[in-house]
Structures are given as structure tokens and as C-alpha cells.
């Protein structure tokens, strides 16, 4: 067992009103630059719909994520390492800008510089890439609130098999839901696995997936390898970019900007502890419908003293273990199981979880006589506007039972709390009927309905005690120094001595001596072997 901490998010879709505040604040912070205009690290999709980029969920077309090979081993769906190198001159699976949309701006100047005339001057749209005038046919969030759905939504990849018969885009029967999407910061990220340059990585401390902008060489396999299409290629810089989970904020203990500004307060951020050695096995389960359980099985109960002990041995700081214990993610996604991963069948073990939305009940609407007991809402789950099968295709690899169980818990919680508020005495049977204790019911109610800022976001600040140590080493070690990789020049001169750094160094050495360990070498890499071990690290991890 090897315990690692991972920062994760839960979004309660029941509360999403599709206001796009998350998308807008994200864009203002991260992607309002040339080459990034078309990127929405956070976007909110109206489902059913083809999404952004178009039909991103259709992996027959884009070949993102993982599949099981004939020998039962995990393989990249788009082809392995040799295949990628042999095809490096052209990536057939890469979407083009038209699959996202061609970014545009308006010719605002004509509004002020037009000469007096009989008609209002018009600001025409023109492309931010080619500069040409554009005839707008597609754009960001083009399908908002089912706009154009009769045309585009039938191409939603989640509408398949019997749903094709069932779902009609008629006004009376129509349904919709919002799915806000960011990078999933997967435990088994296929983008990282697809990167030929080794520029993408998971941060060891919190699992955030990042692109090293200096090491990226623009081969573009990450963009096509991600099944969620959440790695973007910047056409201006020639490098890949993606959601950073706002790591500068997270390190300071603050939630991501999309969460901070979420009007519906539907996002939760916290740590989960997981067993890094169990990831590969969990992602390799043969039956897609068992992937969800397998994914949950890699997580460790932060309340279990044995887990906490192991976490300490594996380098998780005490305050992080404590934060994991208070994490809203563990109860929502694992303990109560109402958070579900987006498309678990991609086998990436995504770390953004969704609580599926309840929706109006169709049958009651049409035929009130039918519902004999208004409290008996369980049968009505089948009659909800959003077909269970549709939710299942998005959130549980098609397993409808999972969706039903979650919806029942959500409905039971409402019944339980209504009873408690009206009669003053809760019905414990309502809780028991969905396999939960009254205490769990109330905790779930609190977290879903009235949780305050510091309950929704339990984010321990990063431990940066060593940051200045690294800073002192900047420019003193590296490939270029005589002696090759791993050789370091002496760090500081007498005049520019970093006293704090040396104090800490001595501190380190004393502590090492006390424990009977080798004195630590403050240089970044001790040897070429260390350098390689660092850069080829996953090898030992076996992930």
C-alpha cells in the first residue's frame, strides 16, 4: 500500500442553474490570451447535446482514454508508444478548431466611426484567428438551454440503444440538465500517458495534473488522448494547456476560482486519500459496470487509524490527514456514494464527481390520479423527466441501478427532513430504506443544503517549507553543468548567502543525525541515477 493524497471536487448537479459564472471567471483568470481564446477550461454543457468540442464523448471517433487489450491489460485507446512515435507527424485523432469553434470578436470600431446614415451601424463578427468576417454557425455554449437541440442533440453520444426510441425532442417531453466540466485530474490520466515529451505530470502531493510549458514540444497527443477533451492546444504558442485546478489558490488553501464564484454553491473541494498501488488494477476491471466500485475501492477511510498511520509513513503531512478526515468529498463520493464519476468507462479514474440531478416527475404531471401516495416517490423515479438510462450513460457506464440508488437516497433525504421539520420527529425507516442511518441522513442534508464555505471547501495549504530551498538552487544545478546531469555548482557566495536556507539545512542535518540517517544532500539531484529516477519516476510506481 502506498497512500497518496488527491485533491478532488464534487459538483451537485441538482443545484446547477447553468449561469456560466464559473466559465466566465475561469476564462477571465486563465484563458483570455491569444491562442487560448477558444479554450474553456471550465465550461457548462446543456445535456442532451453534443457538447464542447462537438461529440467529445464519442470515443469511437476521438479514441481518447484507455481500453483493455486482448491480454486484459490497460492500453491507450489511440495506440501505444511505438504507434505514437511512428505517427508523430500527424495526429489523426486531434480535433480541429472547428470542432470547438472559431473564436471571434466584433468590429466595434464601426459603431463609433460610422458616418451618419439612415440605419444603425452594425458591428460585424470577424475571426480572431484569420481576421476574416465570419458567418456564425457555431460558438461557445451554442447549445445553451437546448438551443438548436432538435438539430444537434440527437447526435449526443449518450443517446443510444433504447434511448433513441425513447427520447424525442418534442416540447412537451423535452428535458435537460447542466453539466459543468473541468479537467478531471484523473488518478490514471491518459493525457499524461499520451505525452511523448514527458511534459505532463501529476503532482505527487495533491494529484493536480499539469503541463510543463517549457518541456512541452507540441506533439498534441495529450489533447487527443484525453477522453474529456480537456487538454487544449494553444495555436499561438504551440504548447498544450489545461485546467490547473487553480493550483496557486489551492496551495494557499483557497478554492478554485470556478468554485469560489459558483452562484449555486454546488461545488465541494477536499482531499481524498487513496492507495496509489491499487490504481492500475482498479482501472483494469473487465466489466465496465464494475469500474465505479473498483474506483471507489482505491480510496482509504481517513477515519481509520491504520490508514492514518500508513499515510504518515508515506509522507502525507499531519494537517493534510486531518483535512482528509474533514473532507466533503469522502462522504459524498464514497461513504454515501451519491457522487458519481463522469464516464467511468474511460478508465481514467476521474476525480471530479457529480451528484445526479432530480427532475420533475412526468407521470404525476400528466396523470395525478395515478400517484396514490404522495410520499411514495420511489416508483416515480422511473417517471422522472430525465431518463435514468440517460444519466446512467453519463455517470455510471450505463448501470441504471446505481443511478436509481443515488436518486432514492436524495429523495429519501428530502422525505426524512420534511417529516422531521413538520412533525418534529423523523421517520428512521425512511433512512433505513435507503441503507443509511438517521445521523448520516442529517449530515448529508447539512452538506447538500446548508454547508458553509469552510465545510464545502476543506483545503489544507501546501507545505512550502522547502520552497525557498528550491529557489536557492535555481540555476545552480542542471543538465548544462560540467559533469553532466546531476552535477551542481555551489549554491551561493558569501556575499549572497541565503541565511534562512542554511539554517534549515543545518536543521535537516541535525535531524538526520538524530535518526541515524545519512545526512541529506541539499543539492537537487545527488547523481545521474537520482536524476533519472526522478524523471522516470513512475517506473517504480508501476502505475
Amino acid at each position, binding site marked *: 500500500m502506498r497512500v497518496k493524497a488527491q485533491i478532488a471536487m464534487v459538483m451537485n448537479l441538482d443545484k446547477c442553474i447553468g449561469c456560466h459564472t464559473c466559465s466566465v471567471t475561469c476564462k477571465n483568470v486563465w484563458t483570455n490570451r491569444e491562442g487560448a481564446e477558444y479554450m474553456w477550461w471550465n465550461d457548462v454543457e446543456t445535456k442532451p447535446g453534443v457538447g464542447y468540442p462537438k461529440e467529445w464523448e464519442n470515443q469511437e471517433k476521438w479514441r481518447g482514454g484507455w481500453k483493455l487489450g486482448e491480454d486484459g491489460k490497460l492500453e491507450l485507446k489511440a495506440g501505444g508508444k511505438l504507434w505514437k512515435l511512428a505517427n508523430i507527424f500527424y495526429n489523426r485523432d486531434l480535433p480541429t478548431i472547428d470542432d470547438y469553434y472559431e473564436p471571434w470578436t466584433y468590429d466595434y470600431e464601426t459603431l463609433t466611426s460610422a458616418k451618419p446614415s439612415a440605419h444603425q451601424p452594425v458591428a460585424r463578427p470577424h475571426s480572431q484567428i484569420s481576421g476574416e468576417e465570419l458567418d456564425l454557425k457555431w460558438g461557445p455554449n451554442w447549445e445553451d438551454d437546448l438551443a438548436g437541440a432538435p438539430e444537434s442533440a440527437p447526435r449526443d453520444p449518450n443517446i443510444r440503444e433504447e434511448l433513441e426510441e425513447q427520447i424525442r425532442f418534442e416540447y412537451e417531453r423535452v428535458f435537460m440538465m447542466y453539466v459543468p466540466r473541468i479537467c478531471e485530474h484523473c488518478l490514471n490520466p491518459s493525457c499524461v500517458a499520451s505525452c511523448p515529451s514527458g511534459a*505532463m505530470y501529476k*503532482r505527487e502531493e495533491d494529484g493536480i495534473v499539469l503541463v510543463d510549458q517549457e518541456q512541452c514540444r507540441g506533439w498534441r497527443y495529450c489533447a487527443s488522448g484525453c477522453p474529456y477533451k480537456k487538454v487544449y492546444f494553444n495555436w499561438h504558442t504551440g504548447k498544450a494547456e489545461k485546467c490547473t485546478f487553480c493550483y496557486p489558490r489551492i496551495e494557499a488553501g483557497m478554492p478554485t476560482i470556478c468554485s469560489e464564484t459558483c452562484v449555486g454553491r454546488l461545488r465541494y473541494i477536499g482531499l481524498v486519500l487513496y492507495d496509489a498501488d491499487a490504481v492500475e488494477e482498479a482501472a483494469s476491471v473487465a466489466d465496465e459496470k464494475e469500474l465505479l466500485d473498483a474506483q471507489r475501492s482505491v480510496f482509504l477511510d481517513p477515519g481509520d487509524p491504520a490508514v492514518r498511520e500508513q499515510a504518515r509513513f508515506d509522507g502525507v503531512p499531519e494537517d493534510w490527514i486531518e483535512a482528509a478526515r474533514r473532507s466533503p468529498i469522502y462522504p459524498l463520493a464514497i461513504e454515501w456514494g451519491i457522487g458519481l464519476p463522469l464516464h467511468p468507462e474511460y478508465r481514467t479514474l476521474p476525480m471530479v464527481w457529480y451528484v445526479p440531478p432530480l427532475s420533475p416527475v412526468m407521470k404525476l404531471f400528466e396523470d395525478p390520479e395515478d400517484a396514490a401516495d404522495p410520499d411514495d416517490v420511489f416508483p416515480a423515479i422511473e417517471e422522472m423527466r430525465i431518463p435514468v438510462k440517460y444519466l446512467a450513460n453519463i455517470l455510471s457506464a450505463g448501470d441504471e441501478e446505481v443511478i436509481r440508488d443515488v436518486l432514492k437516497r436524495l429523495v429519501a433525504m428530502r422525505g426524512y427532513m420534511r417529516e422531521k421539520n413538520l412533525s418534529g420527529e423523523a421517520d428512521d425507516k425512511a433512512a433505513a430504506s435507503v441503507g443509511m442511518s438517521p445521523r448520516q441522513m442529517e449530515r448529508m442534508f447539512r452538506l447538500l443544503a446548508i454547508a458553509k464555505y469552510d465545510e464545502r471547501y476543506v483545503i489544507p495549504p501546501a507545505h512550502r517549507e522547502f520552497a525557498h530551498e528550491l529557489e536557492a538552487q535555481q540555476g545552480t544545478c542542471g543538465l548544462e553543468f560540467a559533469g553532466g546531469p546531476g552535477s551542481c555548482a555551489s549554491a551561493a557566495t558569501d556575499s549572497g548567502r541565503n541565511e534562512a536556507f542554511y539554517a534549515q539545512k543545518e536543521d535537516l542535518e541535525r535531524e538526520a543525525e538524530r535518526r541515524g540517517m545519512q545526512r541529506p544532500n541539499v543539492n537537487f539531484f545527488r547523481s545521474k541515477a*537520482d536524476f533519472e529516477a526522478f524523471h522516470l519516476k513512475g517506473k517504480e510506481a508501476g502505475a
Partner: protein
Amino acid sequence: MSLLDNFLWVIWPYLAMASFVIGHVFRYRWDQFGWTSESSELLEKRMLVWGSILFHWGIILAFFGHVMGIIIPIQFYHAIGFKDPWYELLSLWAGTIAGAAALIGILIINIRRWFVRRLRTHTENMKFAIDALLLIVIAIGLIVTLGYRIWVGLLNMPGGAFFGQPEFDYRPTIGPWFRSLFSFAPDPNLMAPVPPVFKIHILFAFLLFFLWPYSHLVHVWSVPLGYLRRSYIQYRSSNPRLSLARDRMRREGKKPPKVERARRVE
């Protein structure tokens, strides 16, 4: 040996090579962020599929052809008993195929760059220049092969003065001259019998080498062979020293020490 000859076959190649080496060191040191293939596939991929694949495979084949003809001395072929007619046949057919593929590819790439508005708007001058230069060098290279080996050599047509007489062989002339640059004993006299079309090809090629480090051509050095060796999932630590120490202890079968307050001491 005239001053011009000295310039063309000694000074100019060394200038280009100096720029090539120093430019690369400088760029690698100072501009990692700019070091990329500058792919434009996101903006246009229907033409790129043909242009890129033909060009890249053609140019790789052509590169190995140049290694065989220029870098490897003719004595080596004689020593292993590889007869001259065989070499000529190989150079004719492999050279023509590689050159034609590369030429068609770079032609498509140039057309695409000039006529697809999305690309043209944001293409920097250096990229136009490099693409055009590649087109010129490859076109002349193909003319060399076609003119010298087929037009004059096989069909006995006139033009030998420009394309080279059948009895001309670049392996005892251009080859030793090129190698003499690297032993720092350049011998421009070796270039005296070389026909003009070869000379033009070489001079433009050195212009390409001159500009190489300042262009997107640097991506050639980033062939990601390391990908074959590494594991799929990569982790990076904010404190790699500590992570390495832990891994080392793990490998040795020791239990790593606990973290007391934070990840302070290992």
C-alpha cells in the same frame, strides 16, 4: 583558389556551422518555452495529413541517403565490396522516391501556409522563410538526382556541364570536402570539379543550417525517444529530494520514517 571559392567552401560553411552550434546552445538555454514543433494541425488538417507525412518520411529517407553518399567514404563501399553500379542504382531510385515524397510534401506545406487564411495571418516571417528554403533545397536536390542520374546519366541528354557528366562522382569530391570541414582542415580545391547544380544545392543547404536554431526546425532534436523507456503515468514532487529518499528506502525494503509535523525532515 579565388577569394570567392574560399568564401563559398570554407568561410560560409563555417559561418553556418557556427551559427548552428551556438544558436542551438543559446536557444536551448534561454528559450525552452519557444522550443516546439509549432504545429498548425489544430487550424488545418486535411492538407496537412498529406503534406506532413510525405515531407517528413521523404526527408528522413533523404537524410540517410546523404549519410550514405557524403558522410560514409567511398573507400568503405569498396572495402565491403559494394560495387559502384549498385550504389548508382540505389542512389537513383531511393533518392528519387525520397526526394519526390519530400518535394510533394513541402510543396503542400507551402501552399497550405500561403493559401489557408487562418495559417497565413499568424505565420511569422521565419516560418515562411524556412518553408520556402526547404522547398528550394529539396527541389534542387531532386533536380540533382534527376538531372545527373537520369537526364544525363541514363538518357545521355545534353547539359552535363550543369548537371554533371556521368563520370563525375560526388563521393570522392563533395564527400571528402564536407568531411574536411569537420577535421578543421577544409580543402576547397575538392569542390573545383563539382557541377553548378550541386553547388547551388549545398550553398542553400548551409543557409538552412544557418537559420535552423532560430526556427521551428529545432523540434528535430526533440524526437521523443524517451517515451519508449518511461512509464505511462508521471509524478513530480515539489520536493524531489525527499521523494527520492523515500523511494530509495522503499527499494531497500526499509520502512520510511513518519512525517512528524509536516514533510520537513527525511
